[in-house]
């Protein structure tokens, strides 16, 4: 034996142990239904052997006597037929039981795994989410779970098949030693062949699947950029590029076809050839008086019905690594340690202050430098404060820190007690009605919902929606424009009458006139509340009592807008840039003016 062989055997054992552990962990989630399914498979195995025995009995005691002796007792005939149908029906019933319960096992396990993932998704803090790819997280609860439980469908049958092979083998050998040994020798050959087949064909199918994934991505990208493709007359070039990727799918599949053709033919031929051998050998044994015609036929019958279960074992074995990999991915998400809730670290601010930052530094997990460095500030209660700075200066991170969504790496954050609400730059609407989206679980009557919508200047367009408050929005409902979504999200925040409201460039998607109206509503409605907002329009900034000027992660100036304009050149520069060329899309505001003017 080579050294390589010696090292690979333990490794194979380790992998087998891993598979067993993984299957056991799954079964533990649904042990009862799994046991019933396996029980059904066992009954099936026993019935299969029984049906071979019945065939033998009928041939030897009904058919052969009738044609040899010319007569057979009616009771024997009735008994034979009853046995055939009885065993057959029992066998069929066992399949129903096994498959139903295997299904229940499979999908209930999937349910419990997905629920575990869901629990993680809602308890892990926002920072954990920020580090993960959205698509992958969704896959954990969906595709990965489905792959994991995929193996649960064939496992009861495969277990039953193992029993079937043992019982059938024993029975064959007991019936006729010579013939039995020949037949039993073929089982492992078929099994190995099936496993090898699955492995080989899987490699190509996996390659095809991979190519299909690449292809889908490329096609999606190309269609998304179709205007660009057209603008540069690049249609032919793109078609050629995509066709090349598509040809990888074809090539992998064609390779699989060759493997399939060969193995399917082999798997068809080997049992048939064995049967032919059994006929010859069996005839010889009959000649010697060791065997009856019925016994010979039942051998062949046994072989015919065993072909399918043997295939399934190959399938189940080849499915194990896929499922195992899926399970590891799911488990990785479920077992990822819970990170502390940053909101818990927030302390209560001294009276009179809405927000206090004390030497706050924040650094992304994989970033080289800090995003926020040594930020200290006090925002008094009842004021409107604006964060102003260039893109990427750290304004959004500051708002996330202050709202308790993200915890500081060092430093301390104190907030005034009471209801807090935040509206993000990208409004997020849930699949549901407008009302659901404003309430988000908070009980309130329609008047309150409408009042919140009015303050957010959203009442008018909601009134024009087909079902008003009951209009379904989001992915599967009515498509709202960016500005409309923002206003619904804002209404969601205002409905809570927050004592502290954070707006992350929320109103920039609105046209300037609507923005002013909304900010005006905020002023009157919120009264004593504190508003902290990221602002980028001069008109918005001018509304603030206080401005915090942010440059490269540091708060470099704090004061009234006019004072900063006068005293801080960098601030003046950026605001002037806003003013001279900063776009409020001027057709949007123009729509009002021009509409009134003509």
């Amino acid at each position, binding site marked *: 034996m080579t050294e390589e062989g010696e090292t690979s055997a333990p490794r194979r054992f380790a992998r087998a142990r891993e598979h067993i552990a993984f299957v056991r962990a799954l079964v533990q989630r649904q042990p009862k239904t799994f046991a019933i399914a396996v029980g059904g498979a066992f009954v099936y195995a026993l019935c299969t052997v029984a049906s071979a025995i019945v065939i033998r009995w009928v041939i030897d005691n009904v058919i052969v006597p009738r044609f040899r002796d010319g007569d057979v007792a009616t009771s024997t005939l009735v008994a034979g037929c009853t046995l055939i149908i009885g065993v057959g029906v029992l066998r069929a019933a066992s399949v129903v039981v096994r498959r139903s319960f295997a299904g229940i096992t499979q999908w*209930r396990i999937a349910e419990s795994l997905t629920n575990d993932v869901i629990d993680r998704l809602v308890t892990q803090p926002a920072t954990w989410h920020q580090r993960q790819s959205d698509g992958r997280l969704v896959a954990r609860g969906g595709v990965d779970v489905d792959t994991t439980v995929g193996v649960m469908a064939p496992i009861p049958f495969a277990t039953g098949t193992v029993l079937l092979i043992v019982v059938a083998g024993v029975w064959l050998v007991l019936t006729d030693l010579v013939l039995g040994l020949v037949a039993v020798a073929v089982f492992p050959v078929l099994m190995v062949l099936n496993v090898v087949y699955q492995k080989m064909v899987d490699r190509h199918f996996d390659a095809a699947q991979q190519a299909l994934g690449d292809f889908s991505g490329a096609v999606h990208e190309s269609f998304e950029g179709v205007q660009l493709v057209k603008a540069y007359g690049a249609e032919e070039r793109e078609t050629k590029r995509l066709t090349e990727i598509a040809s990888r799918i074809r090539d992998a599949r064609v390779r699989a*076809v060759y493997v399939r053709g060969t193995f399917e033919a082999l798997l068809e031929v080997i049992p048939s050839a064995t049967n032919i051998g059994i006929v010859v050998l069996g005839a010889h044994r009959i000649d010697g008086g060791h065997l009856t015609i019925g016994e010979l036929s039942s051998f062949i019958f046994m072989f015919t019905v065993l072909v399918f279960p043997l295939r399934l074992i190959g399938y189940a074995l080849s499915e194990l690594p896929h499922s195992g990999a899926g399970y590891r991915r799911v488990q990785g998400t479920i077992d990822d340690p819970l990170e502390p809730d940053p909101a818990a670290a927030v302390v209560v601010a001294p009276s009179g202050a809405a927000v206090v930052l004390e030497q706050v530094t924040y650094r992304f997990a994989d970033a080289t430098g800090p995003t926020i460095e040594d930020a200290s500030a006090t925002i008094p209660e009842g004021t409107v404060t604006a964060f102003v700075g260039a893109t990427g200066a750290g304004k959004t991170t500051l708002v996330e820190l202050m709202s308790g969504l993200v915890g500081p790496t060092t430093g301390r954050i104190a907030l005034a007690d009471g209801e807090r609400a935040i509206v993000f730059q990208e409004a997020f609407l849930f699949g549901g009605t407008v009302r659901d989206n404003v309430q988000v679980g908070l009980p309130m009557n329609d008047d309150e919902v409408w009042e919140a919508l009015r303050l957010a200047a959203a009442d008018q367009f909601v009134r024009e929606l087909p079902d008003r408050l009951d209009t379904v929005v989001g992915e599967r409902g009515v498509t709202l424009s960016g500005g409309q979504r923002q206003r619904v999200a804002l209404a969601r925040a205002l409905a809570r009458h927050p004592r502290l409201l954070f707006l992350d460039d929320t109103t920039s998607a609105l046209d300037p006139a609507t923005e002013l109206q909304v900010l005006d509503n905020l002023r009157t409605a919120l009264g004593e509340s504190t508003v902290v907002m990221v602002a980028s329009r001069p008109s918005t900034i001018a509304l603030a009592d206080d401005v915090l000027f942010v440059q490269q992660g540091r708060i470099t100036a704090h004061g009234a807008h006019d004072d900063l304009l006068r005293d801080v050149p960098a601030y003046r520069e950026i605001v002037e840039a806003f*003013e001279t060329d900063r776009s409020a899309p001027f057709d949007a505001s123009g729509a009002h003016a021009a509409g009134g003017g003509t």
Partner: protein
Amino acid sequence: MTDTVVGEPSGPYSATTAIGRGLEEAPVLRQGLGVTWLLAAVGAGGRVVVPVLIQQAIDNGMDIDATGSERVRMGFIVGCALVAMGALAIAAVCQRTAVVRLGTRSEQALSDLRTRLIEHIHRISLADHNDERRGALVARVTSDIETLSNFFRWGGLAWLIDGTLMVIVASVMLAYNWFLALIAIGISIPLFFVLRLVQRHLVTAYDRARRRNGDMLASISELVTGAETIRAYGAGGMFAARAKGAVRQRADAQIRGNMIGAFLFPLGEVFSVITIAAIVTAGVLIGPAGGLTSGALVGFIFLTYRYLEPIAEFTEVLDQTQTAVSGLRRVLGVLDMPVGPPAPQQPQHLPPGRVSIDIDDVTFSYRSRADRALADDALFESAVLERVSAFIPAGQQVAVVGATGSGKTTLGRLIARFADPITGQIRVGGVPLSQIDNTELRRRLVVVAQEPFLFDDTVAENIRFARPEATRAEIERIVDLLDVRDWLDGLTDGLDTSVGERGESLSAGERQLVALLRAGVADPDVLVLDEATSSVDALTEVRISRALTHLAEGRTSIAIAHRLSTAARADRVLVLHEGRLVEDGHHDELIGAGGTYARLYDAWLSATSAS
């Protein structure tokens, strides 16, 4: 669902015409189909070898006399076995060849079909490309073709083999004894219908499961994309409960489908044993008098399984076929979508050098809701242009302004020939747009879109998209020409910086810069610029307008302007209002005139200034 929007024709294709048209689109499939079928039939014949051998061995190889002693003619049996082995070998080779032939041809055909689809989709009108439809179009090229591929992998072969196999088995049975054969065939007929019935329920159940699966994924996806909002509103418990409800419904639907499926396979089993019992009873009752032999009766038992197998398989294949045909219908529906502006019959060349643009009495309206996707705001109103005329001399820099829905974006798209006017004509360099060869037009006239699209590649490759043969030195030259070297040097890998999916690693303004460089490399004579409305930080803004000024130099340029500064800088401003050209002149003139433009300007000024 969006899937019904695209390529679900209102019924021009029955199953047979769809298949006919499909074969036309993929001629590879038809090549040598007869030979493949013949090979498959011979291969299927291999399945009756063993039952026939048993019958022969029992009837002619063994003499069973009344005393019960059995004399076996080994020579005969060995001879038969050798023949059987030979037949089996031939059948196996034929089967393999048939599988390989069908497999390679179908994959080739599907590959060709993918190419045809992509080619066509790139050519259909921009109006048919929008966010809602994109997923559906991608599905046509991927998942619908996959249903066809699945079909060929299993169903296609079954169609070739199953019928033939049943005919072969039935013939052997008929040859043994016509009465018993009729019993077997008679019993199989109700099996077929029962199986169909169960199948139909199964399909409905799995459809439901698929929908529930979609709901489940949507609610999980909400937990992920809405993570921040959910936390900000402390709504984790509520959303988890909501998602778990969807998960439970999905599991229930799957289990239900599974239950129905659990009855399918055993049905064949039950019918098999009933058939065998019936045949044995009838065989025993007839006895040797009817010419029946014990070997034939035993052979019948085996043949019964061989006969019923394909029925069970075939009922499954019928549904797979339905799925494949509806996939094919959707694919054909896309191939039937009209392509964008038609290619000219006799393409004309543009004169060399700078060219003028003559907008001559152009009227345009969006014919259908789909077309309206082109308009600024597709939601409620359709934008139209009414008898717009303007002559733009070569080298002039024009800004088109107007309120939302005024038709300015539409005008830009007509000049770029993404659509043709209903009446009137646009001429470039004196040649009607519809007469210009597309390749030449795209080389001479370039559009920079509002939200420029970037491929998930490097900055350099995205720039090179305009002209794949452009050298590095040429790109560098354009970088200097547009004066954006300082920005480029600030990127981690300069020109080799990856822009990420849709260019998301860059800011909106930086994506614009890449788009301008791309236009620069194309070196067009006409530049159509659809200005962005999105917010851009001040420094990038300065770079963009600097790059734009350099890019527009010496070219005829039309900016669909959303910004005051662009209009103020232009040689000439065209003001559109409700689809009509209402004002035409320089910024200063128009301000002085106190018309629509002046009002737009006032509104903008008061909204954006701090004082």
